[in-house]
């Protein structure tokens, strides 16, 4: 049980539901019929068998409070409609179910018999908890790091620049081209590229892989030391004000650099937060914003880079990040790329729109208090991977890379986990020629 909420906290939480001006939230709070048929679409229920963790239960955490305070029936006969009071017991359960037992993968949404946007309701529930100050400390620490230092891993500028310099040297050696660069804070470029802070921290080779692709495509691009973090963990904590601050920094930096286009690093939630949510946090239009997956696919289509699938001998499979596919509609592009970089590519079952989350979404990787549950729910993904017989699992998301690396170890899958940029860089052919030919 947590600290008893004050009246002010309760009012702050209820403000999300009272005087509702959002027809979408109003709709989804009133739509669930408690059929329970969403259970089998949720990896928490499938792996734990816990009936309390089915998606409808999570929706009901929020809608039961809505009924209690915002509907006539809930006010007159709360017992009849299970209208719950927002008190410490409810809050404790909300924190566990909405933060600790949901990756916000949205798989249940597509399969809901009614069409309830369960993920959207859970976001509203997380916003209530955020306004009351009940974001799990570990997740809030990640948001705070981004707010205070400009990146969620609190990487110092000096360390970041050292890593970039190191990667630049690696790239120059590999390409045998001393002119190959990782541009920093360059103005008037075509592309402002972002990173997931896990890259400079743990996976620097993915930076040089993408730099190699930009170099081969003869792209005019830059990284920025002021704002390179593609993530926005406020999307997961539920605090719109924090989300807004982080989104503002990103938009300001695009304008400052004078870039035509913002290219988002391989990060599912980062792509979603920057491409789809940031304009709504700020209530402003963004300049052209694409994911690096779309950008690489375009380079291949335009013939600006050329690859040889034979260079990747092992069987390759693809893990679809939920926020990129169900939350962002990017599904064909990664498959187009796979066709050009892997001679033996096999899909997982199910994949695409129906793919299962790796288990690390929704901020789960940042919330160490739910580690055991997070690894448990990954059973499904581990089994999916095992069945493909692949030696390489590619995923365009650093968050997924982290989770997949952990389940690779826990479930002894013996596979390599790579990003799209890494497999493309491995399959790149050195010369494209003067007149690039579009790829089929």
């Amino acid at each position, binding site marked *: 049980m947590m600290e008893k909420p004050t009246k002010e906290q309760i009012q702050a939480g209820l403000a999300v539901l009272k005087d509702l001006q959002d027809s979408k939230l109003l*709709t989804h709070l009133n739509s669930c019929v*408690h059929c329970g048929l969403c259970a089998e679409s949720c990896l928490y229920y499938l792996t734990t068998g816990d009936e309390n963790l089915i998606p409808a239960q999570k929706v009901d955490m929020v809608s039961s409070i809505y009924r209690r305070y915002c509907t006539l029936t809930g006010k007159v006969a709360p*017992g*009849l*409609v299970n209208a719950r009071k927002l008190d410490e017991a409810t809050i404790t359960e909300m924190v566990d179910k909405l933060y600790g037992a949901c990756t916000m993968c949205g798989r249940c949404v597509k399969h809901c018999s*009614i069409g309830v946007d369960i993920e959207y309701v859970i976001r509203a529930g997380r916003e209530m908890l955020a306004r009351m100050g009940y974001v799990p400390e570990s997740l809030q620490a990640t948001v705070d790091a981004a707010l205070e230092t400009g990146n969620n891993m609190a990487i110092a500028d000096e360390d970041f620049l050292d890593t970039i310099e190191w990667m630049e040297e690696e790239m120059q050696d590999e390409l045998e081209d001393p002119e190959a660069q990782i541009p920093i804070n360059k103005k008037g470029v075509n592309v402002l590229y972002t990173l997931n802070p896990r890259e400079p921290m743990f996976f620097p080779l993915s930076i040089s892989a993408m730099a190699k692709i930009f170099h081969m495509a003869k792209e005019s691009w830059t990284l920025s030391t002021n704002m390179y973090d593609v993530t926005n963990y406020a999307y997961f904590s539920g605090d719109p004000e924090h989300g807004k601050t982080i989104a503002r920094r990103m938009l300001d930096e695009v304008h400052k650099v004078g870039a035509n286009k913002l290219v988002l690093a391989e990060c599912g939630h980062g792509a979603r937060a920057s491409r*789809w*949510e940031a*304009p709504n946090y700020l209530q402003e239009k963004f300049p052209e914003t694409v994911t690096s997956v779309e950008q690489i696919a375009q380079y291949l289509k335009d013939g600006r880079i050329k690859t040889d699938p034979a260079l990747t001998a092992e069987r390759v499979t693809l893990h679809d990040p939920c926020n990129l596919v169900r939350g962002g509609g990017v599904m*064909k592009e990664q498959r187009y790329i796979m066709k050009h970089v892997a001679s033996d590519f096999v899909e997982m079952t199910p994949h695409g729109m129906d793919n299962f989350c790796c288990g690390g979404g929704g901020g789960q990787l940042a919330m160490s208090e739910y580690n055991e549950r997070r690894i448990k729910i990954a059973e499904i993904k581990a089994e999916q991977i095992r069945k493909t017989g692949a030696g390489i699992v590619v995923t365009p998301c650093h968050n997924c890379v982290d989770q997949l690396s952990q389940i690779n170890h826990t479930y002894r899958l013996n596979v390599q986990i790579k990003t799209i940029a890494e497999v493309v860089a491995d399959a790149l052919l050195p010369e494209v020629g003067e007149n690039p030919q579009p790829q089929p």
Partner: protein
Amino acid sequence: MHWYQWIALITAAICLAGFSYHFARLIRLGKPKDYAHPSGKPASGIAYSFTAGMNPVNKESAFLHLPTYAAGIIFHLASFAALVLFFVLLAGLTPGPGTSMVLAVVAFAGAMAGIAMLIKRMTDKKLKILSSPEDYLSNALVTLFQLMTGLVLLSESVYPAYLLVSAALFLYMPFGKLKHAIYFFAARYHLGLFYGRRNVWPPKA
């Protein structure tokens, strides 16, 4: 008109007013403003949401639960037919014997489906935990309404009881979960709009 006809008429008007309130509220709030550039076509997403998006082949909630799905479809189709029939009967119109028999079969099939779903709700552990008293009440009310619809088509003597059951249903409909009769369509619309803008729906080949 008899007193029970008046009651049925008044409660139907209350129901209509309640639903109008919900509908007007949704219309007043309007479509959510989205500042992100769409990558797909919202109209195509909405069209898909109301057509192929509801195809049982595309939904685990349907193809993993075919008996429940089938019961649900029968229950809802029969409910819709019974609601239309209510106004026909209240207007004093009587279907012919053959039509009455067919409609009675539909109504009884709906009632059977309702009873099956009620039993499932009472016995399935997931549903028991999830259900509130009104989940049972709503199901029971609609099932009883269908049962009475079937009976009134076979025997006019139950007409007063049929209208009183209908009145109870109408009185409750706008206040409980049965208001999903309106919100279901809004939910499909919003989902189609969301997925359509993001180029998720219609799915790509």
